[in-house]
Every structure is written in C-alpha cells, then in structure tokens.
C-alpha cells in the first residue's frame, strides 16, 4: 500500500504517480491523505488500482476514471467522477452538483446526498444515490441507470433519452418528457443488481420507475413549446 500526503506532495505529482501505474502496475492500493478540498484529485486513472481519499475532495475528483476504484471518505465537490468510463467511484459523504456528469460507464455510488444536476447528460454510467438528489438530475440523460433511494428534486429527467431512473422517495416534479413507467419483473431484477453492486440494502419493489416519453427526441413543430 502506498500513502501519499497532499501536505507534502502536489496533486500533479500524485496524479502522475497514479497514471504511471498504467504501464507498470506495481502498486494496486493507494491512500491519499489531506485532500483538503483540492481540485482534480485522482483524475484520469486508467489502471485496475484502488485509491482511498481520506477527507473531503474538491472539484472533479476521480474524473475520467477508467478501471480504477476510488473511494472518497468525505464529501466531494462539483463534478465528481465526471466523464467516467469504467471502474467504480464511491463517495462516503455528500456530492456537490453535476456528479457523474457525461459518464460513459462504470458505477458511481453516493452514500450521502447528491446536489443538483446529478448525472447530467449521462451516457452509460450507473449512479446509485443512497440519499436525496437535487433538481434537474439526469438532465438530457442518454444511457445508463440512475437510482435515488431518497427524494428527487424538481425537473427529474428533463429532456431524457434512454436513462432508466428509479426513485424510492418523493419526486418533487418530473422534467419535460419524463414520465413514470410500470415496474416490470425485468426492472426489479435490473434494480436489484444495481443495488447489490452498490452495496445498498433496499427493497427494489419499493421503487418507482421513470423514463423518457420519447416525444422530444426529434423536432416536431407541435412540440415547440416544450423544447
């Protein structure tokens, strides 16, 4: 196990050391001390390594992640795990806005609450939020799954494409072209698998499913007022 203290090492040096693992993976377990809200900690990882960040992280933590498993033992700032491709990012505390933005793949777990625009423009990432998620979550979501075990804020799934959204709590309001859909057996199975992967003990039957009404995919003049 390798420990890097950000009181002694710069974020740039930390990230370079983590990137060097792509060629010569000789250290699979990393611990980062004193993140102290610094930006871009553990970004662009591309090897099967685990990174434990001991404290609150700043903006864009674990962005562009591939393969790696990153755990933030605290809160995460804006854009945690933005554009992640694969691997797993886990936030033990709360996540600020735009968590998992534009993510293509992998799993993002937020054990606390997620702020506004969680999963904005998600393109295949799976996101599980144990607490609440803020307004405009899964905005323009194209692919992937968003699970919210608490409540969802206003305009959930606005302008949605094909993200599957599951919410256990209250939904303040649905966004344009986001509709409630029936929970069929295949959805309960899908949700159970997501909850298992995230390590979240919830009954999938207690959730409701939301998805695209598919009325805003292509421009129709009749829908002009909804765009």
């Amino acid at each position, binding site marked *: 196990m390798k420990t890097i203290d950000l009181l002694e090492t710069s974020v740039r040096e930390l990230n370079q050391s983590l990137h060097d693992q792509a060629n010569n993976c000789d250290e699979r377990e990393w611990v980062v001390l004193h993140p102290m*809200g610094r930006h871009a900690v553990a970004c662009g990882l591309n090897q099967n390594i685990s990174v434990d960040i001991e404290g*609150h992280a700043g903006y864009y933590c674990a962005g562009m992640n591939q393969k790696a498993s990153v755990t933030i033992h605290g809160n995460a*700032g804006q854009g945690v795990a933005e554009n992640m491709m694969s691997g797993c990012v886990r936030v033990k505390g*709360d996540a600020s806005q735009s968590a998992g933005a534009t993510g293509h793949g992998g799993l993002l777990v937020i054990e606390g609450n997620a702020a506004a625009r969680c999963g904005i423009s998600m393109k295949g990432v799976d996101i599980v939020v144990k607490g609440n998620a803020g307004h405009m979550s899964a905005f323009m979501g194209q692919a992937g799954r968003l699970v919210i075990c608490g409540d969802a804020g206003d305009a959930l799934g606005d302008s949605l494409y094909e993200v599957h959204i599951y919410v256990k709590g209250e939904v303040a309001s649905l966004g344009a072209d986001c509709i409630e859909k029936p929970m069929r057996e295949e959805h309960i199975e899908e949700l159970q698998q997501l909850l298992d992967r995230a390590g979240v003990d919830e009954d999938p039957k207690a959730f409701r499913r939301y998805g695209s009404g598919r009325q805003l995919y292509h421009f129709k003049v009749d829908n002009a007022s909804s765009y």
Partner: protein
Amino acid sequence: MCGIVGLYLKNLELETQLGELFSPMLASMSERGPDSAGFAIYGDEVPGDQIKITLQHEDTAFDWAGVARAIGEELEHQPVWFQNATAAVFKLKTSETMAREYFARLAPEAMIMSVGRSIEILKGVGLPQEIIERFNLPSMQGTHIIGHTRMATESAVSMAGSHPFSTGMDLCLVHNGSLSNYNWLRMRLQKYGIHFETENDSEVAAGYLTWRLREGDTLEQALKAGLKDLDGFYTFAIGTRDGFAVIRDPIACKPAVLAETNDYVAMASEYRALVHLPNIENARVWEPEPARVYVWERGSKLGMVA
C-alpha cells in the same frame, strides 16, 4: 467566477482571533477572484447614540486629520477616528443623514464604504493577500466577518466596484454570480429613495435588501422576496449587526459550502477555504439547498431558518 467567504462566531471567546482565522479563508479564494477583494468586519460596536463610518480614499496621504478637525468644528467636539491604510473609521455622535452631509461637503473625494454601529468595510483592487496585508486583517477582532474575492463580469475593476456592498446601516452583501434585471431594479429602487454609488449589479441586490428591511421585512422575509424579484445567478452572504445569512438562487449553479461547530458557522464558495479552521474535521459540513434561507442571529435562537 468570484469567491465568497463568511465566518460567524458562536463562541465569543474567539473574537480576538477573528481576523487571524478569516485571513486564510479569503486568501484561499484567490483563484476564484484575483482582481480585487474586500471584507466587512463586525465588532468594536459604538453606543446607541453614535455611528461608525468607514471611508476610503485611494491616496494613502489623504489628509484625514484635516477632515476630522473640520468635522470636530461642526460637531463642537473632536470625533474619535483612526486611519487604516487607505481607509479611515470615524465614530460620531450624530445621525447617519448628518454624517453623510458632513463628509459630502468636507471630504467629497472620499467614498463612504459603510455606516452603522458595528460594521467596517475595507476593500480594494489587488490580490486578496495584498488586501489582507494592506489592512492588517490578521490582527482584527470582531464577532463576524464576510469577504469576497472578485473576478469582474458586470462592471469595472475598481475599489468602488469591489465587494462587500453596503447601502444601509450595518448591512452588507457579497455576491457570487451575475444579475440580469439590475438596471430596471435599480431605477425602481431609486424611486423609493435608495441611493447607489456604482453601476454594479451586486450593489443593486444590497439596495434591494435595504429597501425590504426598511419596509419592515425581517432579513428572512427580505431574502425570500428577493427570490422573486432578483433575476440571475447568485449565492449571497449577508451580514447584519448581529446576524449572518446565506442564500442561493433556485438554479444554484454558483457553489456554496457551510460548516458548523459549537464555536462557529463558516461559509465559503468551496470547502478548501475552510480547511484552516479549528476542528473543521469534526464540523458538520453541507451544501446549502437552492432557494433556502439560512440565518444565524445573535439574541435569537442560533440555527437554520427554513
């Protein structure tokens, strides 16, 4: 982008350390706002029959002593005053209206930064660290303080355009964001007698609160009314004589973090501004929700107001 920070003491034993605790908070927001910075500190309160006025003149050699003598002749007693770099603080036994009239006549080139019993606003162009050193912030004492680091978007980079803004007794506001209906709103507020010193959008928000409070609103009511009347993006931190408030607009794209311990409430654009505070690792740290008013006031129950 701008940076805003605030520190409100619950444990008044920390009053002597307020400036020292706050300086690294302001300095850490340099990247968010490198062109100018400022702060409003509350403390050293004058008795109820006096007011405290903070003025600034960009010339450090400005003859404040001469202004003090001239005002002394008007008041028929020598005012208590002191200079701090480009600023001067006067403590006068008179009304706000009379004081403004004296300074407009006797020191027309000096700008009034703040008027109240407790508030002192100090600000200027330069990196936050320069402003901290210029006014010797680490040595300052008080009960609460809010500050701003500016990256200008809506008006010129100048001392007058830097934050905090005050348009009423002991009231001030710092703003991260930009308002879009401020010209129209300024005209409306001017009709109600609110006076503005600059073309800045954030000053209009401060003037709006002054107007609402003058009409009898509580701070919470005024901020809730602002959700309807102020169009644009904002996170505001607001200081009053004995209170501190934070609000974000309903879209909430401008960041904010709150932290609370038994000793203090701290607010910042980003968590990294809070990391030097004592016992921060055990603080309750959370992101204020959109369109929700958070108020702490002395003399009333401390805590959040929904």
